[in-house]
Structures are given as structure tokens and as C-alpha cells.
């Protein structure tokens, strides 16, 4: 009876190996993913919904096969999901940039990672070559490395 109920999706698959793997990924990377999502979606309820959605739709196989490890895979997926939701809820977008308080590399990281703009669009918007946009992203991580 229970097996039938589980097949129908009525009961949660507590014991399934996939569920177990998802839960261990959640335990290991939910904080990173939640941090990434909150950077893009500052509204907590929306961010929490996105986090749950991220882990319910996560492909364990793809995550395992990711060349650069599960953490990078989850960071990428969390960003993609959060930007999708952000674009859907266009009214809630907080796109204003406080340029004075940020360096160029921080601003470019903000536009690309948190606001989902492509390097091409940023280059056009800031009237700089695309190579310069990528270089600023390099500088952003370089300054992070140096500060640690």
C-alpha cells in the first residue's frame, strides 16, 4: 500500500536514494545557494521559494557529473533560478546601482552576476569593450583573493 502511495506521489520518498542524495546536497550547499539567491532576490519569501524549487528540480546526476564539482554547479543553478524568478517578478526588481560606493569591477560583477546581464550588454551599456568587462570580473576575484 505504501509503495503504491509513494508511486502516486502521495507520500514523500523519504527512503529513496535520490532523495537521500538531494538532502545531502542540501545540507552541504544550501547556505551557499541561499546566499547567492538572496544577493539576486532580496525578498526573503521569494528567495526561500526559489531555494526549495532549486533543490526539488535539481538533477543529482548532472550535479555529480559537473566537471568543477557540485558547489559550482549549485552556484550556477541558484543564480539561473533566481534570475528567472527576478525577471518573472519584474515589479520587484531592485536594479538601482549605487555607483559611487562601488568600484568598476564590483559594479560589473553586480550587473553580470546579480542582475543577469550578459557581458555584451554590459559592454554596450558602459560603452567599453567586452574584453574590458571580462577583465573587470577577473579584477573582482583578484581583489577578493588579495583581501584574504
Amino acid at each position: 500500500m505504501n509503495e503504491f502511495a509513494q508511486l502516486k506521489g502521495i507520500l514523500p520518498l523519504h527512503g529513496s536514494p535520490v532523495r537521500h542524495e538531494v538532502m545531502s546536497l542540501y545540507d552541504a550547499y544550501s547556505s551557499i545557494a541561499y546566499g547567492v539567491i538572496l544577493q539576486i532576490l532580496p525578498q526573503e519569501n521569494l528567495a526561500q521559494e526559489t531555494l526549495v524549487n532549486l533543490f526539488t528540480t535539481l538533477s543529482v546526476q548532472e550535479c555529480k557529473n559537473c566537471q568543477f564539482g557540485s558547489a559550482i554547479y549549485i552556484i550556477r543553478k541558484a543564480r539561473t533560478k533566481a534570475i528567472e524568478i527576478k525577471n518573472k517578478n519584474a515589479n520587484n526588481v531592485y536594479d538601482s546601482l549605487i555607483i559611487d560606493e562601488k568600484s568598476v569591477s564590483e559594479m560589473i560583477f553586480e550587473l553580470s552576476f546579480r542582475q543577469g546581464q550578459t557581458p555584451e550588454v554590459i559592454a554596450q551599456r558602459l560603452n567599453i569593450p567586452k574584453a574590458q568587462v571580462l577583465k573587470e570580473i577577473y579584477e573582482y576575484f583578484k581583489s577578493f583573493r588579495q583581501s584574504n
Partner: protein
Amino acid sequence: MNTQAYIESGILEAYLIGIASDDDVKEVEAMQTTYPEISLALNNLQTDIIQHFNTSAITPPPVLRDELMLKKPQTEVKKWDFTQQGTNAQQENRDSKNNYVEVEFDNTHIKVHKYWRPAFIGVFILSKVFLILALYFYFKSDSLQQENLRLKQELKISTNK
């Protein structure tokens, strides 16, 4: 090929955090297989990126873990690729069970958009208004007909006199 300049171009960071364009992704994947120093740089960068995002990591509320435990894992819905190449690739495993999302069918209710409610109320109110107007004009025309008949009879009587 100046691999150091390539490593410092920022394309590897863009690739790892998922902001690189499709062309850049293909380029980095080709470069890392050709140049081992680029592959090594990517591996080192991976650690830096994880460390970077670890600094902004926030523990989610514990209730989300319970919510996740109760949810059934879903698979991403893949759309059919209607190009010739995509059709050929999909033709081979068209009947595969993995290509379909199972839908539960034991629910007898349907979901409609929330705007249907005011639309339905509007149509209902309008139908009542038209019904009242129809009845009003029907009785009015009926009374006018009777009045007309009465006046005709009065006129007939007065002309006979």
C-alpha cells in the same frame, strides 16, 4: 598562444560563474583540453569562487529542509527541439518514458486564471441588468399598446357620436 594573458582575461571566471556566452563556453572548453595550464587555472579558480560565495553564505531557515523533505523531486521540463537536427536526435528516443512528465489525473478540479472571477461577476451583473431592462421595456411597450388601444376606442366612440 599566451596562456597567461588568456587566464588573466577574465573569461575563466565568467565561465565558472555561468555568465559566459555560449561561444565563450565552447572556447574555454576547447582551450582547457588543449592547454593543461588553463585546466589547472580553472581548478584553482574553482576554489577561490567557492570561497568567495562561502563568505556570503546564509543558513536558510530549518523549516525549508522539512518542506523539501515533503516535496516530490521534479525533473526539469525539456522542450522539444524543432530543428531538423533536434528532430532527428529526438526521433530515436521519442517513446522513452524519460521524455514525459507524469501528470496526476485523479483531480476533478481545474484551475483558472484569477481574472476569471471578476470577469464572471461582471458578466453575471450585466446579464441581470439586461434582464431587468428587457422586462421593463416589455411591460412598458405592453402598457403603451393597451393605452393606444384605449385611445383608439375613445376616438372611435367620439367620431360615432
